[in-house]
């Protein structure tokens, strides 16, 4: 029961009203394969990567359990047809059949890299690699160390074909509470890559930096990173007094000092403080006032224009003035991070999971998930997944809703409910991304249309096991999307 449904009316209206959307082809696919039609897991916090050498090859991840009960491996999602269909491949080393935080990124020559907190091993960072992501062989372990949080992988490839691999992470064992870190190798494809833990934080903190450290890599060797600096004094308390800091390296971080090319005019230290002393909440429990999601200060994003390494966009989340609602902000720099737009290019209230990407034409895309309506009981709340795109450097934005799903069904089984992050990337002129949402097969929930591989009946709005008749409860699934630009 492979179902492709498209509700054309909203799409046509959008096309008519939003010039930036004209002729873009949008594909949304539920990534759970047919053989997993019975699954009811909370497949949240997804990630995605497109093979730059072959965009038909795409890999994804989520908090997805190995359905065989095996504890030694956990699955990733793989596609070899541009995301039209997906297969789960149990190749991530694990101790409990799941991963902790996980991100994936292709390098060159079909090499796929992964950063994960090894399932069943707490805050143990594993950096992984495979040269054949559809093979059954378990990914090989390139690096392992403890006390690390939220590994987020990016790659770049030199003109000579060397894979530079950057794993942004929060190294909670770093000295003096300066925990923002990038684990980096300059040659990812060799048998045993050499790794360095590059410290980003030159300033004092309240004891640590925030969990998310994200990088953006340009082919000319420019590498940016963004992180939340938690300001002194100690102890760190919510809402956290925070600076949003951007660092830059101009040569793949291959020479010391690394990530020191950008300094702040206030103190002369490495790292431009883009906004200072904002308040970021850290409330690590499911919030009925926010679609069952939590606030764990994990929402920064950065993207560099592939046609101009001086142009970079950032996004972050905070409590403006120290109070709700959780609010997303986007800004831009055109001079390598030295100066930034004075105000937000766009501000989104009561939303989470900001993610940015810039395509080969300089069009910027902003993916996020909006909890709406604000202030209503949980039963009436929705999660709207939006992609906004701008062709004029963020002055004006169109708006495309990929999903509008219940925020109350299913009930949360663990946190994060939909994830502490999502992902979007550009491949040439096109955008590819992933988000997690309730999988109720209701066409009205997916304004751009949707394809399910798992057994679903959109008329009765029911899910079924592989037998096609036994009902299955709704759950959180990962959804792939692709926007083919004109």
């Amino acid at each position, binding site marked *: 029961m*492979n179902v492709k449904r498209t509700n054309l009316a909203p799409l046509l209206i959008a096309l008519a009203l939003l010039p930036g959307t004209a002729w873009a082809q949008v594909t949304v696919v539920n990534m759970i*394969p*047919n*053989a*997993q*039609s*019975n*699954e009811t897991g909370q497949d*949240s916090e997804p990630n995605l990567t497109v093979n730059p050498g072959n965009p038909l090859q795409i890999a994804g991840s989520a*908090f997805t*359990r*190995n*359905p*065989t*009960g*095996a504890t030694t491996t956990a*699955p990733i999602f*793989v596609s*070899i*047809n541009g995301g039209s*269909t*997906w*297969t*789960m*491949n*149990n190749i991530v080393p694990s101790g*409990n*059949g799941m991963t*902790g935080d996980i991100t994936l990124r292709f390098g060159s020559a079909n090499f796929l890299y992964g950063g994960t*907190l090894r399932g*069943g091993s*707490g*805050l143990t960072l594993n950096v992984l690699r495979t040269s054949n992501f*559809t093979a*059954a062989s378990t990914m090989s372990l390139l690096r392992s160390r403890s006390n690390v*949080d*939220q590994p987020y992988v990016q790659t770049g490839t030199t003109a000579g074909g060397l894979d530079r691999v950057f794993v942004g992470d*929060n190294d*909670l064992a770093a000295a003096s509470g300066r925990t923002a870190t990038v684990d980096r190798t300059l040659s990812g494809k060799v048998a045993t890559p050499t790794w360095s833990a590059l410290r980003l934080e030159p300033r004092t903190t309240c*004891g*640590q930096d925030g*969990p998310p450290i994200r990088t953006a890599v340009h082919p000319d060797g420019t590498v940016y990173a963004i992180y939340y600096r938690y300001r002194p004094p100690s102890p*760190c308390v919510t809402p*956290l007094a925070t600076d949003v800091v951007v660092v830059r390296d101009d040569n793949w971080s291959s020479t010391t000092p690394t990530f020191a090319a950008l300094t702040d005019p206030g103190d002369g230290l490495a790292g431009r403080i883009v906004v200072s002393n904002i308040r970021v909440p*850290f409330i*690590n*429990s*499911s919030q009925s006032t926010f679609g069952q999601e*939590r606030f764990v200060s*994990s929402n920064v994003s950065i993207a560099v224009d592939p046609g101009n390494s001086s142009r970079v966009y950032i996004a972050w989340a905070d409590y403006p003035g120290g109070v709700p609602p959780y609010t997303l902000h986007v800004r831009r720099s055109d001079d390598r991070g030295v100066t930034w737009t004075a105000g937000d290019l766009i501000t989104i209230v009561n939303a989470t999971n900001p993610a940015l990407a810039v395509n080969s034409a300089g069009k910027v895309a902003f993916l996020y998930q909006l909890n709406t309506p604000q202030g209503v009981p949980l039963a009436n709340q929705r999660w709207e997944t939006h992609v906004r795109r701008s062709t004029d450097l963020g002055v004006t934005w169109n708006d495309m809703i990929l999903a509008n799903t219940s925020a109350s069904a299913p009930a*949360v*089984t*663990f*946190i*994060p409910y939909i994830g*502490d992050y999502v992902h979007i990337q550009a491949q040439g002129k096109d955008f590819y991304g992933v988000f997690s949402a309730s999988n109720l097969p209701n066409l009205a929930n997916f304004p751009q249309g949707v394809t399910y*591989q798992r057994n679903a009946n959109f008329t009765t709005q029911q899910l079924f*096991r*592989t*037998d096609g008749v036994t009902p299955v409860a709704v759950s959180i699934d990962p959804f792939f999307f692709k926007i083919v630009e004109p």
Partner: protein
Amino acid sequence: MNWKHVRMGLALLAILGWAVPGRAQSPAADPLRELTKAADLVFRGTVLKPGAANLEIVEPNDKTAVVRVDEILAAAGTLDDFTGREITVFLRDASAKAGEQGVFFTTVALLGESLGVVEVGRRGPEVPRSQVAAAREQLRAEGVRARMEASGLAVSGRVVSVKAAAKADGGGVITEHDPQWREAVVEVRTVLRGQLAEKTVSVWFPGSQDVMWAQAPKLEAGREGTWLLHRHEAAGRGPVWAVLDPQDQLSDEEAGIAGGGTTP
């Protein structure tokens, strides 16, 4: 003495003894047991198309075959029922012939429009379901005993109170993966492993609902059970007894396998 558990354990062992042929052999010498141990999907099947595959991402070769699942003999986890469906088998060798029947011992590698399973061994189609089931039960019992042996203290009893543990572990670090330790006092009825002089024991467990800890046992006041406890170094507190792995909270049946024990 928890006689309910003892009786269940004896009954299970009796079943295993009757059901497993060649029980005089050492477990490691039983090839069917070893195959069952290595497999997470065991099925009776018929080879339909040697050299073929029915998963798009699989390139067919002489070591792949499309096989019809005639009967599931053992399946682990939450795998759906694939009886009657065709799946792709990565064969150990290229010897499969169309129409050939057998019992396939496999691990599940791929889940797409169908299954892709890796053959770890094959036996003739005459292997009875009961033989595989008995091997799995034996393995499960061995697993429970091994887990108990690996624990520092194993107790049966009742949770009398639960409170937040003193905030020491982690030293105030802010992470979404904070275990949010909680401390339960368990009134011990039986000690299955280790030494315990007192009639109660303090047990730490992660109270967090974060993905890293959500599966960990959550002890609640009034709950009866059996737990396999491990030493955990809590910063500023020293070693405490803790339970983290969901497999360390035993079902009644597993507790029966674990055996009798002593009264503290």
